[in-house]
């Protein structure tokens, strides 16, 4: 899809919010926020690495914004998103190069461990409210405050859809770029990438930092939606939820991340409403269904990937990496 068409689509979805009922606005805001962080996981997954600890950057973004908002009265929604993205991104720039040399399960476990260390530190830090966290004020936009709840919800919906939409456009451009292709190459054979004169670690680190920026911005949205932050932002189940969305979406389509996030929120809300005691069961069955019938994710519904034609004979090739020598 051409970027201009995508921009038009983002504008249309934003304006469509005017027609949506209020309860749907907050649902869509959460879905857009979750899609943003899950998009980062998909960006990183293209290098063959999955982060089970994006909650770390989600919390870093959220806490960073909350602290600055309370200390200096920064309430502007756009400024808060920028601060959140910067906090997540800076942390990602520090951590990325340190863990880029690991791969597979070690990479995933390291990210999980780091997020849990952060969670533990937050719980024990009374200055940050400990396990209870603390509250922040209602966000404004370009000097306008929104006292009407529906207008406030629409403002947040609009900002989250626009930011997430532009992140999606940026990710689409990235996926098609020279760097995006090299990222796929790292996933397939990082040793060969090195033999071609490229740094696999640098490619993973940059993707990691991009994912952290998205996670930090997403943390800012979650904070604005709840107007409260606590260590749960960094907890492993929170991170797991984002991986859940990424798995549902697959890594073939940026749009799939938004569809998966919205689908998950709808399934969760309705199953919570009609089956309050067994909603997790419904959620689990939903995920099983997607894995069973759409193993390459929701995106495979509209992306007919040439990689589907991969023959079974190629599967052992990955095991041969380096064996040539």
């Amino acid at each position, binding site marked *: 899809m051409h970027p201009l068409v995508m921009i038009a689509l983002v504008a249309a979805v934003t304006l469509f919010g005017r027609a949506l009922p209020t309860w749907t606005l907050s649902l869509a805001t959460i879905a857009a926020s979750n899609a943003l962080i899950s998009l980062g996981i998909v960006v990183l997954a293209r290098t063959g690495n999955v982060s089970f600890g994006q909650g770390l950057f989600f919390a870093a973004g959220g806490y960073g914004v909350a602290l600055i908002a309370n200390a200096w009265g920064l309430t502007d929604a756009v400024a808060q998103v920028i601060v959140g993205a910067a906090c997540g991104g800076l942390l990602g720039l520090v951590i990325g190069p340190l863990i880029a040399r690991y791969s597979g399960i070690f990479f995933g476990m390291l990210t999980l461990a780091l997020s849990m260390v952060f969670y533990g530190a937050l719980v024990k830090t009374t200055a940050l409210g400990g396990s209870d966290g603390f509250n922040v004020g209602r966000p404004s936009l370009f000097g306008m405050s929104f006292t009407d709840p529906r207008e406030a919800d629409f403002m947040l919906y609009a900002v989250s859809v626009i930011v997430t939409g532009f992140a999606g456009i940026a990710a689409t451009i990235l996926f098609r770029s020279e*760097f995006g*292709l090299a990222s*796929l*190459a790292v996933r*397939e054979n990082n040793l060969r990438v090195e033999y071609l*004169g*490229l740094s696999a670690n640098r490619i993973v680190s940059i993707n990691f930092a991009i994912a952290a920026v998205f996670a930090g911005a997403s943390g800012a949205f979650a904070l604005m939606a709840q107007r409260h932050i606590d260590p749960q932002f960094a907890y492993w189940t929170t991170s797991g939820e984002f991986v859940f969305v990424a798995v549902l979406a697959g890594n073939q389509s940026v749009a799939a991340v938004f569809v998966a996030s919205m689908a998950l929120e709808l399934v969760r809300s309705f199953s919570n409403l009609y089956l309050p005691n067994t909603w997790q069961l419904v959620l689990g069955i939903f995920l099983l269904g997607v894995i069973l019938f759409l193993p390459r994710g929701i995106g495979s519904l509209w992306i007919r990937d040439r990689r589907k034609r*991969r023959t079974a004979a*190629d599967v052992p090739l990955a095991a041969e990496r380096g064996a040539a*020598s």
Partner: protein
Amino acid sequence: MNPVLSVRGLEKRFGAVVAADALTVDIPAGRKISLIGANGAGKTTFVNMVTGYLKPDSGTILLDGTDIGRRSPRSTARLGISRSFQIPQLFVELTAAENLAVAISGTGTRMSLRAPAEAQGRRDAAVELLERFGLADQADRPISELAGGVRKLIDIAMALVRRPKLLLLDEPTSGVSAEEKFKTMDRVIHAVAPDAATIVFVDHDMEIVSRYADRVVAFYQGRILADGIPAEVLNNQEVRRYVTGGAR
């Protein structure tokens, strides 16, 4: 003629196994040199040390006078050493042109996060390289759909992208039928000639070695058993006994 690669006293042990025992050899520029030896003789260990995949226990490896013994594969690639692999190391989910596009990205100083991967200039360069190997019609096919022999050629094409000073080919004709091996090797030599000044190839096929090599280095148990022109080395009694088994 000054050697492009100069190896002195190179040693490498894996526990009790001596994979390289005081190897000393000069590789002159502009030649085609074949490394021969039985399995486990130390040929691939030598290639792995020269390309930075393995660090030698001792000894020096000089590329045009620069010590590269402790450098990484990425660094040696950037200094001008490229290699292909016995089992082609390709990105099987990508097309042939995309594989070469990744290799072309490696020649730049920085990669673009915005410029399309298959920008016309990059694609043209990839197709031109495939053309040299007679594979232009395979450009848009995923590697997973290609036969082993074609993969081997693409693997070599990727190594050639950097226009290396020294190109190391690990068994370029292995897995190719007896009828096709000379045709394949002719294609490789023809395609490689404009860009790679010096070629070192590992091979077990003595017909290929005697036909294409200017010089042969025979390995046995981590040592160099013989080093010279093909006719001399392949008729050497020790080489016939330990390496070729009398085969010519």
